[in-house]
């Protein structure tokens, strides 16, 4: 597949960086001229995946979070968010709505939000090696005349 643009980021798994991560990815997709709703969906999905890396992947300590994003010729965003942390022992359960191992303050909706706000979500994880979440979203092309 040919990509029209690519970027890579790595940053400390600190909760203060959740905002940085979602803002960086949303800036990266701006040339595709997404709607405000599409941008909100992308930012929310990124925020969920990055929070998972911090709360679950690196629950025992510090680490680095890696983001790779690509844009295809057809206007699709492909974004991979990866940690080298604890891993998910049971991916199927982890993706069930309301399932959480994160304690009372976690809603258990991270994957539900990612799946609803993005077109495609896939998860690969190995215990003690880490987790990679890859998400895709096609940005609908808008006729210039339609935009206010």
């Amino acid at each position: 597949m040919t990509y029209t643009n690519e970027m890579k980021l790595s940053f400390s798994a600190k909760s203060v960086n959740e905002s940085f991560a979602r803002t960086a990815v949303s800036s990266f997709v701006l040339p595709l001229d997404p709607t405000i709703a599409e941008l909100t969906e992308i930012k929310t999905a990124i925020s969920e995946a990055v929070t998972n890396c911090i709360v679950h992947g690196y629950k025992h300590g510090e680490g680095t979070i890696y983001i790779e994003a690509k844009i295809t010729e057809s206007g699709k965003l492909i974004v991979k968010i990866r940690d080298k942390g604890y891993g998910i022992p049971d991916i199927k359960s982890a993706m069930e709505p309301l399932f959480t191992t994160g304690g009372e303050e976690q809603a258990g909706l991270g994957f539900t939000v990612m799946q609803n706000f993005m077109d495609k979500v896939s998860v690969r994880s190995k215990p003690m090696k880490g987790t990679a979440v890859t998400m895709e979203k096609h940005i609908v092309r808008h006729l210039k005349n339609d935009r206010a």
Partner: protein
Amino acid sequence: MLKIQSENQVMTAELSGELDHHRCAVIRKKIDMLTEQERPRMLRLDFSGVQFMDSSGIGLVMGRYRQMSLIGGKLMVINIPPHLKNLFRLSGLGALGVLE
């Protein structure tokens, strides 16, 4: 960033800005400290000033619902802006009867 007012045992917390896992931790502590001190009969979470939110915001609501149940009070979520409606719909919080 967070404005909390009480009147006639009704506490209102005006949330604003971006509600993610990072900020929710701070907000949660402030609200819980005040509800434990004042024991209001109702806590209202006002979302009108929230520009961005992920499921951490839903976790914040669920946790305060439990907190208020423990002290025998009620929780209401008020002024959900249009850009957050989708997330609240996904959350299933409507079934708890806490959404305005």
